[in-house]
């Protein structure tokens, strides 16, 4: 009898869980449907810009001394001799076949480049995001807990500095201090001399090294990632810490906090439960913006630390005016940004039951 | 005879599309307001009383139905209404905090209708007129003319709203719960200046409120609304002597009172029960039936029509249809 009740209970829990999941998936679906036209718009925008703006990519690619027929050949290869809408149409058709066009910089398909360089960037940005979230939570909570007292004031000043100093300045400073003056960390690259890169399976060198069982390599890669990831995360960390703090100070004034206090719930529980959770909602919402700053700043940070990632590839195609490369870089960053934002929205919807579903 | 009605609403419907479904804010109501009188429009939240006011004044176009003002059809979007009409119909809104632009001084707030309708030419003329209007609502002009809304109290803000509404000398003003956010002592002040102005300007007005005692003091006729429908229409005196609709009785019995005489007016034997339904999925048949102690089978199925029980006293309830 008792067992039977238990089964029913679990069953109803599962049903409820599935129902909740469905609501979330529906919400995700809606967000994806909204994002797709935006991404198509983005592709049109960057495509037009790449074809219309002055400066001849074919000439750039061929070099200043190339004979005219070479330039013409490249122009034909890039379909620059066709009308704009046809160029976009063919580009779109190719895109659906997984082909982003030919890169005049690397002299191969852009798709191959993306597959090769993207994982390194993603793993760096992922680590930076972890630093950011951890640091922001720690600083924000300290600041909110001791609002208007000494720790809070210190964190606030630190946060201003964190926000104001650009990531590339942090990068150079860290390189100077923690690599050159006090050689704690390597100053650039992904591997130390003599380290054998793991065989490529996923492209993510951290995962690949684990798959290959090269634990030393794993640590070595991680060691190389600390400075760039930290430089990358500081700005966003400071921004988020401030928002968490503001959220807490705001929540503390709320009636619902008075209510739980009036019913004798101890201060620690009030703080860690009834104040913290509502304060995180705005912070997570803003995290979408922080991802933008991570993705953008990765360009400079990868350059400084010579990280063999997608952003450094992006800079190279830009400096070489490789139009297919540029279009691909913008589009890929746009897609990553969109995915990250959807994840952020789902987390917000998870934290705040009012968002995404409403029923009486 | 027909001419004495300044406002006629015929089968007015206003639906709003929301992500959660269609809100039937106002669902097929008809009412008439006689010239020079005040019609009290009473209801609770979700009754559609404010929406009715907003539609009349043109903020939202009606979904269907007609509105006639001085025998002209005005059920068109605001942009298509003639300018004189906007001068003739004005509105005082509910929330004093959001009724006045916080970035402007009182002179410009009250002066806006004057400027829009080109009723003043020079700055001096404007200040003179605004001063007169402020005096009318018992605000000393030299004190208030150049202040900003943040520096004045809620009651004073509402007085400014009233001054603005009467600036163009309208013949019809809608008061949408002008005192619901105010304390009683301030409410008394505002209601008194409204009464004075109504007398002085020979205003016709629609007075929207949820407060029956207040309505008693202000209006000559009452319309009771529930979930977008009209339940009862009656001259005020008749209404308080003989409330017919069960909802009206419930509403009246729910009013807390101060004196014995008042207690006698409250209907006995009916108690407030149940929740106000949702305007998205209103109950079938009579919308009040889930809360009605007298509900019968027919109430769940058939919507009662508004019938005239005695001259001027209308009610929409199956209890009275049989007779």
């Amino acid at each position, binding site marked *: 009898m008792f067992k039977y009740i238990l089964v029913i209970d679990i069953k109803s829990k599962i049903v409820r869980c599935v129902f909740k999941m469905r609501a979330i998936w529906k919400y995700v679906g809606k967000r994806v449907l909204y994002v797709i036209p935006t991404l198509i718009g983005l592709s049109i925008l960057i495509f037009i810009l790449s074809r219309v703006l002055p400066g001849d990519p074919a000439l750039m690619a061929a070099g200043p001394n190339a004979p005219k027929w070479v330039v013409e050949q490249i122009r034909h290869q890039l379909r620059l001799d066709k009308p704009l809408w046809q160029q976009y149409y063919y580009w779109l058709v190719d895109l659906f076949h997984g082909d982003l066009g030919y890169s005049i910089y690397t002299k191969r398909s852009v798709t191959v480049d993306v597959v090769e360089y993207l994982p390194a960037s993603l793993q760096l940005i992922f680590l930076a995001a972890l630093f950011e979230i951890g640091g922001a939570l720690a600083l924000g909570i300290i600041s909110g807990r001791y609002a208007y007292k000494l720790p809070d004031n210190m964190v606030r000043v630190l946060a201003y500095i964190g926000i104001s100093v650009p990531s590339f300045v942090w990068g150079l400073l860290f390189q100077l201090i923690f690599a050159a003056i006090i050689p704690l960390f390597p100053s650039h690259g992904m591997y130390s001399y003599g380290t054998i890169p793991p065989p490529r399976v996923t492209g993510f060198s951290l995962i690949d090294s684990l798959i290959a069982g090269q634990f030393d390599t794993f640590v070595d890669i991680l060691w190389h990632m600390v400075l760039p990831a930290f430089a990358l995360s500081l700005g966003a960390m400071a921004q988020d810490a401030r928002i968490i703090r503001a959220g807490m100070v705001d929540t503390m004034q709320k009636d*619902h*906090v*008075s209510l*739980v206090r009036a*019913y004798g719930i101890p201060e620690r529980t009030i703080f860690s439960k009834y104040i913290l959770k509502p304060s995180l909602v705005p912070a997570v919402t803003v995290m979408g913006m922080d991802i933008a700053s991570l993705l953008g700043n990765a360009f400079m940070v990868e350059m400084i630390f010579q990280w063999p990632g997608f952003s450094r590839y992006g800079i190279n195609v830009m400096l070489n005016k490789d139009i297919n490369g540029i279009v691909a870089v913008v589009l890929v960053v746009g897609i990553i940004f969109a995915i990250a934002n959807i994840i952020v929205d789902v987390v917000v919807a998870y934290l705040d039951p009012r968002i995404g579903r409403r029923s009486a | 005879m027909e001419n004495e009605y300044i406002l006629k609403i015929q089968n007015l419907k206003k639906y709003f599309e929301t992500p959660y479904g269609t809100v039937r804010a106002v669902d097929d109501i008809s009412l008439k307001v006689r010239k020079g009188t005040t019609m009290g429009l009473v209801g609770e939240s979700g009754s559609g009383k404010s929406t009715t006011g907003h539609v009349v004044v043109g903020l939202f176009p009606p979904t269907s139905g007609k509105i006639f003002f001085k025998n002209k059809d005005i059920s068109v979007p605001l942009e298509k209404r003639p300018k004189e009409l906007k001068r003739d119909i004005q509105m005082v809104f509910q929330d004093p905090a959001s009724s006045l632009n916080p970035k402007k001084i009182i002179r410009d707030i009250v002066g806006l209708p004057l400027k829009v309708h080109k009723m003043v030419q020079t700055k001096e003329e404007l200040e003179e007129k605004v001063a007169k209007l402020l005096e009318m609502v018992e605000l000393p002009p030299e004190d208030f003319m150049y202040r900003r809304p943040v520096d004045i109290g809620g009651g004073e803000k509402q007085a400014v709203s009233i001054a603005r509404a009467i600036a163009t000398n309208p013949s019809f003003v809608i008061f949408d719960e002008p005192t619901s956010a105010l304390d*009683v002592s301030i409410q008394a002040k505002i209601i008194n200046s409204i009464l004075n102005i109504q007398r002085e300007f020979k205003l016709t007005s629609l007075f929207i409120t949820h407060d029956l005692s207040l309505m008693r003091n202000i209006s000559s006729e009452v319309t009771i609304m529930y979930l977008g429908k009209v339940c009862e229409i009656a001259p005020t005196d008749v209404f308080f002597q003989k409330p017919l609709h069960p909802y009206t009785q419930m509403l009246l019995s729910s009013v807390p009172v101060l004196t014995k005489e008042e207690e006698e007016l409250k209907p006995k034997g009916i108690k407030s029960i149940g929740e106000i339904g949702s305007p998205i999925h209103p109950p079938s048949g009579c919308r009040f039936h889930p809360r009605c102690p007298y509900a019968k089978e027919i109430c769940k199925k058939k919507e009662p029509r508004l019938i005239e029980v005695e001259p001027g006293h209308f009610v929409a309830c199956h209890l009275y249809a049989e007779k």
Partner: protein
Amino acid sequence: MNKDILLEVKNLHVGYKTHMGISQVLQGVHLTVRKGERIGVIGESGSGKTTTMKSILKILPSNGMIKEGEILYQGRNILEMKQEELLELRRKKISMIFQDPTSALNPLFKVGQLMLDIIKYSYNLEETEAKEMALKALRDAALPDPERVFDSYPFQLSGGMRQRVCIALALIGDRELIIADEPTTNLDVTIKAQVLNLLTKLVRERNVGWIFVSQALGAVRENVDRVYVMYAGNIIEWGQTEKVFSNPLHPYTQKLLECVPKLTGTEFSKGIRGRVPNYFNPPSGCRFHPRCDFVMDECKKTFPEPVEVETGHFVACNLYRRR
């Protein structure tokens, strides 16, 4: 020491520290509640009612400062209690119903989560027992389908249901004193009546002390034994409900009662001139003197000592001192 007395507030002075300076809100508030007695506190917004109630539970906002006074609960001073003792008091003895159920319930937690947390800390119960207790409280608050309410977020409930949830919270266990701070202000008329009926019924049944704070004079009159009238951080008049309402003594109380519109349509006064004083620079002496029609010189100097005009009916006004 009178054993009958549950709560006694003596000479309470409370201020708030803001960047504009220190506001002196409460100026010697006093209040007595006997066991099982129902007390009403009336006053307009900003008169310090909520501040007084929050002081009793010591849940003032962080910038609030209790400068002087005693709050005795069964003889023990709440203001000097140790943290554990205070928690015990909040968990078992006194509970509070807040003004706005929407802002008083944390939107991110289910009703059940909140209730279980409160019960867990108060009574140290097993999960299933705690849930049983919570459901019983919800049932007592006349909530239909308590299981569903238990499993809902506040936004999924109507305003009336939210306030019932708050009442359920206040009823968990055997409280001795329930403070209801304007519990019906934000509700619709019929729902207001329901919630108030429920509250008074429960208070009577359980014979607990009750402080009913409200601006709605009628609601207070109908439901309490004794009444305190507050103006600008002072108790200016108190006594048995019947006496205060039939024979108001203080000029402010008199005026306030005149301001309330009546169902009978009796004309009401033109309000009280002036406005509620600013607490940063309050008027000297009797804080009502700038608005009082009977002001005398001594009113401007010192706050009048309370006088017992008839048995149990006190007033703090110089008009009655002379007699």
